Each structure stands twice: as C-alpha cells, then as structure tokens.
C-alpha cells in the first residue's frame, strides 16, 4: 500500500494543474490586474503597489539551501569522526514554540543577508551558485566553491547546540505584546546572531497525552532583524486519525514574515509533518515549503521534502520553481558510506551530480570537500585562509 501511495505522491507534479491556469483565469477575469494581494497580506492592511527594495525572491532559494543542509548534513554525516555533529533540526522542531523559533531563525538569517555587509558578497541564490559552479568549473573553481562554502558555513552555524530559543513573558520593551522570544544562531565566523520576536499567543487547542500537556497556539507579532521590524504570523493545525490497523498524525504549521513597508510582499514558510504507522512500520515525512510573494503574487516556491525510512535511509528533495524554471536536487546518504552526501538532479534543465564530504586536514581544521563528477574541489570550511598561510 505504501508503495502505491509513494508512487502517487512522487508523480503528483506530472498530473496536478499548472500554476499558469490560475494566471490565465486572473487575466481573463481581471484584465486590469486588480486581483493582487491575497488574504494573508490583506489582513495587515497597508498600501500596495509601492516599489520594494528587498529582493525577497532571491532569498528564498538561499533559505532553502540553509534549511536543507541544516537538516540533512548533521543527519547524513553524523557518523563521520570529524566533526561530531549530532541531532539536527528535524528532531528539535517538535512543537509550536520550536517551529516558530525556527521560522524566526531561518527567515531572520536570510533577511540578514541584505542588511549585513559581511553577507553582501554572498550569492543571491544558492542554486544559481551551484549551477554556476558546475558550468564554469575550469576557470572559476576557487571563487565559486567559496560561495557555496559560505552557505555551508552558515548552515554549520545553525546546527545542533547553536540553535537556541528562549521564550519569556514580556517585560517593559514592547507592552503591546505578552511574549518575547530570543532566538540565537551562530554565523559563519562563529559570532552569535540573535533575533528577537515579540508576540501574542492565540490558543488553538490543548492536548494531554501520557500526562504531558501540549499547547497549540497561533502567534501575531513582530520579528526584529537588524534595525528593521517585520510583521509575523504563525498558525498551526494538528490532527490524529486512528484506525484499527493504521494511525496517521498530521501537522501543518505556517510562519509568515511580511515586508515592513508593504504587506503584499511576504515569505510564507510552511511545515507539513506526517507520521504514518501501518502494520507495525512507521514512516515519517516532513516537508517545508517556502513561498515568496511579491505584490501578493507567488514568484518563487521552494519545497524541501525529507523522508527517513525504517532502515535509516535518508532522502531530501529540493525543488525550486521560479520564472517557469524548475530546479530539482535530490540529496541522499547511502548505507555503508555515511561520510558523504550524494547530490543529483537538474539545474537549468541540465543534469548535475556531486558529493559533499566533511574532512579534516593535518592541522585539525575541517573543510568541505566537493566532488563534482570527475573533478575534485576542496575548500576551507571556516574561510580561514589567512590562518592557514
């Protein structure tokens, strides 16, 4: 039964209606382009059609890379003797609070790109970086590998114990909000980056299981990134269906971050978590979808899908859809070769394949090692060429 379900799901993109259908309907019904902002953006009011200066679309793909590597690298490489990476955010995002905290951390990290000088040279799209890396490897290997290493280093900052969140009853800072959460991540240079979120909770439900009480709630508030303040909304839905031979638990969480000057520009982060137990076997599927809206219209959708089978095999699929271009990458760890991550897929319509390793040099420094097809690249992990010299 699972195989059929899996096949249906895997092939769903080939049968589901194209997004262009919606656009055609819009054009037919509203030739003057009046149907702009969807409900979520509209709820915040504000003016529309002002020109934006944040390059929101460009950040979503980078965010996805951060996310997928944050999740997958520690899981796939955790048996690697250097460095010892444990956990992984998938295990840490276990309730509403941690989901909202991760939303603040991951979106906050990406929004930092446009605000911090140190990130100004970073590529706007990690996927494009990968694509460029593959295409012009002969003459630009070092520079391009450095770019991707920046992402990996940033990812590294989000791993394991470097992702912390602390919620407190709000004090004097922002009286209109009841709660304050400080989320701390570490950047590529080892410095701590903190994002503060002020919010009110809207209770949704309370579940008591095995003596433990789990509270589900929505949030409305603001996220501070640098000197800017972004409106945020978080919502969650949890459902359990129990049958004699099958149990399904589903969770859908959303986290929206709005542009401070125009709420019709926003990023919507969605987590879908499904745990299915059938005939004694458990299958866990997690999906993160980052959708970027500009003027209320979807301009980019990045889907990160994660699956762990009973036998421990890990698969993560990344799909980025923008400007009628669809890039797909499948990340896998292979049984028996836990020290590498195999990556293959399509970028700009062309096949690509490479591996990512974490290795340690004679000085004890760790570095990422990329193996692209037959060409071999290495790059320092912490941008510390000066020290090496």
């Amino acid at each position, binding site marked *: *039964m699972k*195989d*059929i*379900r899996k*096949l*249906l*799901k895997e*092939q*769903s993109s*080939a*049968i*589901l*209606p*194209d997004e262009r*259908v*919606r656009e*055609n*309907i*819009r054009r*037919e*019904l*509203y030739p003057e382009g*009046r*149907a*702009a*902002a*969807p*409900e979520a953006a*509209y709820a915040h009011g504000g003016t529309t059609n002002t020109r934006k200066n944040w390059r929101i679309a460009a950040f979503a793909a980078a965010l996805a890379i951060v996310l997928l590597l944050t999740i997958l690298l520690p899981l796939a490489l955790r048996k690697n003797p250097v460095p010892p990476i444990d956990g992984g955010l998938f295990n840490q995002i276990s309730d509403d609070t941690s989901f909202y905290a991760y939303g603040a951390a991951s979106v906050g990290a990406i929004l930092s790109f446009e605000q911090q000088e140190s990130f100004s040279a970073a590529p706007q799209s990690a996927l494009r970086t990968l694509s460029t890396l593959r295409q012009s490897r002969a003459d630009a290997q070092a520079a391009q590998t450095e770019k991707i290493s920046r992402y990996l280093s940033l990812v590294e900052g989000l791993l394991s114990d470097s992702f912390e969140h602390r919620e407190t009853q709000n004090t004097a800072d922002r009286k209109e909000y009841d709660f304050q959460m400080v989320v701390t991540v570490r950047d590529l240079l080892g410095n701590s980056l903190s994002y503060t979120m002020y919010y009110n909770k809207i209770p949704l439900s309370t579940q008591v299981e095995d003596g433990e009480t789990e509270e589900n709630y929505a949030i409305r508030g603001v996220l501070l990134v640098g000197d800017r303040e972004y409106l945020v909304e978080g919502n969650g839905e949890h*459902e359990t*269906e129990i*049958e004699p031979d099958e149990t399904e638990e*589903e969770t859908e969480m959303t986290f929206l971050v709005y542009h401070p000057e125009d709420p019709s520009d926003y990023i919507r982060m969605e987590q*879908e978590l499904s745990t299915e137990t059938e005939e004694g076997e458990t299958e866990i599927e997690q999906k993160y979808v980052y959708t970027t809206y500009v003027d*209320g219209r979807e301009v980019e959708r990045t889907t990160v899908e994660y699956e762990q089978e009973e036998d421990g095999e890990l698969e993560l699929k990344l799909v980025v859809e923008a400007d009628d271009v669809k890039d797909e990458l499948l990340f896998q760890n292979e049984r028996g070769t836990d020290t590498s991550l195999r990556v293959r897929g399509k970028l700009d319509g062309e096949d690509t394949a490479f591996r990512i390793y974490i290795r340690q040099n004679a000085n004890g420094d760790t570095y990422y090692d990329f193996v692209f097809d037959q060409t071999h690249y290495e790059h320092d992990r912490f941008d510390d060429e000066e020290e090496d010299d």
Partner: protein
Amino acid sequence: MKESKLERVIERYKAGDVRAFDTIYELTNRSVYFAVLYIVRDKMSAEDILQETYIRAMRSIQSYEAGTNFTAWLARIGKNLALNHYKRAKREIFADFDTDAYKYGTAEAEIPYLFDLAAKILDAEQYEILMLCQVAGYKRREVSEMLGIPIGTVTWKNNEALKKLRTYFEKEGRS
C-alpha cells in the same frame, strides 16, 4: 480546509473584493480539477476546462447560495463542461476515446501510467477521493467537507481505491 472559511471568503468576493479570488482558487481548484480529469482523461484538456469553470463560476458567483457547498457547485460546472468536451471530442475524433484519450494531448501533458490506470479501474468517487487524499495532499476531514460525505466513507473509499489500484498495478507487473 474549513468550509466556513471558504464561505467567508466567498462573501468577501461577492461584496467586490476580487483579491479573495486567490484564496477561493487555492481552496477549491484540485477538487474541481480531478472531477474534470476523470471525465476527459487528458491533462491539457482538464486544465482548459478548469480555467473555463472558474471564469464562468466567478462571473456568476452571485447565483451561488451560501452554505450549499461551493466546491460541489464548482465541480458541477466543471463536470458539465467536461462532459460537453467529451461528447464533442468523441464526435470529432473517430477513435477509442476511452482507451486512448491521453494520446491526444502533447507529450508533456501525457498522464503517467498509474494515474491513467486509476481512472480506468476506479469509479468516479473512488478516483476523486484517492486523488484528493494521496495526490493533492488534503486531509480526509477536508475531503469529507469538500465532497459533503462522512469522513468514514472517505477513509473507506480511499483504502478501497488503494487496494484496487495496487492489485491491478501488481498484476501488470509494474510494482
């Protein structure tokens, strides 16, 4: 999906807020699409009919009576259009439309074998429930609200459809 949420958005649209269209489309399009696809068995045709369905429905939305299941109302419009399309195509193309419908689309619109098989061996309700639960990603409760049938029926028909599809699929030696 909460039907009450959909009803609220429809009221907004009826009151002149055309920005509500996106939400209406988001909450309903897949149910309509699969109802249509089951009849025409061709992705491109189904997309054209889906488009026409919404254009007609949104232009005459004032005739929709609140609380009478908007998704089902849309699906009825879609099915009528699909049946007309089917009859017209059958007249125009002298071929076994039931068997070869997917061949009349372009290569990119060709329906994968498993979906084609599902459309052939399942009845309309089983097919729609299977597609909504397993392909469109709706929860059974949501499908129950959309189709206006009890959740137990959705669960049962979903499982029946899966079993039937697996049996045929294995028989074909493709699993």
